[in-house]
């Protein structure tokens, strides 16, 4: 595995592992229990350099490659899903549309603060009636003399309802294409814009310490300068950002699996039943062997896809495959880890319980497993 990593990747792993152990782990259980988004911890993650990792230094980023980002996400997720969610949502789908498709003025205005974590950004795609079918967007933007007026709502949006939120990118319908399909366009909507309301969502199974919100846009007025790229390019922009996002989510699955596996192995070595450690019982030993094997396979593939992205090659299919496999693998591994822990694994006092909850969204968020299979099947000629 480490053959794929250079010295910089290894340095990133060491630093982020230690940061996660020292700064995130002590708070993770409490923040999860309270459903509390920590501004202070988010700022520390910003100081650490976890935001804007792959962004050009000219815009305040760190100029690292995709594999560094994947390794960092893996390490944070090994400890906690909520903080990893804040990071990956901001880095990939938050920053992505502006970085990849924004004008030079938009990049200069927003990216430097995004890269320090002073400003978090949301990805306004999902709607109450437009989930996997993201082109069914009901939010509408109408042209006015001054610019555009947006009406609609979004749901399950990360990073828009905390004091660091700078705004979000909104996909809205701006017309109808010749073939009858909706013309979709992306707009920058800054926090505090009149008509923009965000409502935090509570009662989540997972990512309880991350910021998730409903967004309402009531006659929100933006200027022409707020449009990202060309009119009608919105869906393409969002899907491109999601390709990158999927690598982050895949890394989260890998990290959760790694964390749960380590906890299960340590527990199995310590816990004695029938006169010997659990790890000496073949049923448990084989389970752990399967977990280790799946994790290693997932890691090898994900790292290769990260390198593929940096090569400039098209990687939609591979990103979907990585997301599909890593997240479903995380489901299997964290579930096995709970099984090894027995009754203790069902208690909130044990970190493995949180990792099991946190991984569940990964098979749903940023494209369900079913959507990944659609992407893959289309790419193989089905």
């Amino acid at each position, binding site marked *: 595995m480490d053959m794929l990593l250079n010295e910089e990747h*290894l340095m*990133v792993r060491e630093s982020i592992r230690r940061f996660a152990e020292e700064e995130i782990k002590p708070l993770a259980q409490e923040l999860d229990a309270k459903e509390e988004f920590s501004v202070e911890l988010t700022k520390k993650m910003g100081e650490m350099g976890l935001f804007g*990792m792959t962004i050009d230094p000219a815009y305040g980023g760190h100029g690292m490659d995709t594999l560094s980002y994947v390794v*960092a996400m893996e390490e944070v997720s090994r400890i906690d899903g909520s903080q990893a969610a804040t990071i990956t949502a901001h880095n990939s789908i938050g920053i992505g549309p502006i970085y990849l498709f924004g004008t030079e003025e938009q990049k200069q205005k927003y990216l430097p603060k995004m890269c320090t974590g002073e400003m978090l950004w949301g990805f306004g795609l999902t709607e109450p009636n437009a989930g996997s079918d993201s082109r069914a967007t009901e939010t509408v933007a109408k042209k006015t003399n001054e610019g555009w007026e947006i009406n609609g709502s979004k749901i399950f949006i990360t990073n828009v309802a905390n004091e660091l939120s700078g705004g979000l990118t909104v996909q809205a319908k701006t017309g109808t294409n010749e073939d009858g399909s909706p013309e979709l366009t992306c707009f920058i909507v800054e926090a505090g814009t009149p008509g923009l309301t965000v409502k935090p969502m509570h009662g989540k199974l997972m990512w309880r310490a991350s910021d998730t919100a409903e967004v309402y846009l009531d006659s929100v007025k933006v200027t022409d300068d707020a449009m990202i790229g060309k009119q009608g390019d919105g869906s393409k922009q969002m899907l491109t950002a999601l390709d990158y996002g999927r690598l982050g989510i895949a890394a989260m699955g890998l990290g959760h699996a790694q964390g749960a596996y380590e906890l299960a192995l340590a527990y199995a070595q310590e816990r004695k039943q029938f006169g010997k450690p659990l790890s000496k019982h073949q049923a448990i030993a084989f389970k752990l062997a399967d977990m280790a094997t799946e994790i290693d396979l997932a890691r090898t593939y994900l790292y290769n896809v990260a390198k593929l992205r940096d090569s400039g090659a098209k990687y939609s299919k591979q990103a979907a495959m990585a997301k599909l496999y890593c997240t479903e693998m995380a489901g299997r591994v964290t579930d096995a880890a709970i099984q090894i822990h027995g009754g203790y694994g069902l208690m909130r006092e044990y970190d493995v319980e949180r990792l099991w909850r946190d991984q569940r969204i990964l098979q749903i968020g940023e494209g369900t497993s079913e959507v990944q299979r659609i992407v893959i099947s289309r790419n193989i000629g089905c």
Partner: protein
Amino acid sequence: MFKTLLAMALLIFSFAPLALPMAEAHAMNVKCNDPQTERGKVRTMRETKRYQRGELVERTKTGNVENPGRMIISPEKVDRDESYEPKPIKEGSNLHECVN
């Protein structure tokens, strides 16, 4: 008897050169598993990039009393500080080895 002792002595001395590299390897293990900057905080991504560009150098075996063996990164540029030598980064060495 003398020949046996001579043979044993030759055998011991023939392995002597390995002792230093092994000691260094151990020091690297300690160092790279414990990344910390002079600020007393974990090395940031920006510092990592600066290190890779050669703008930061790691000060090994500095005799940091509180944390012996910890990786120390100095904020000074290499050409402005002669108190320690910049460590060349080579593929297959240093952190590579210690992790593998």
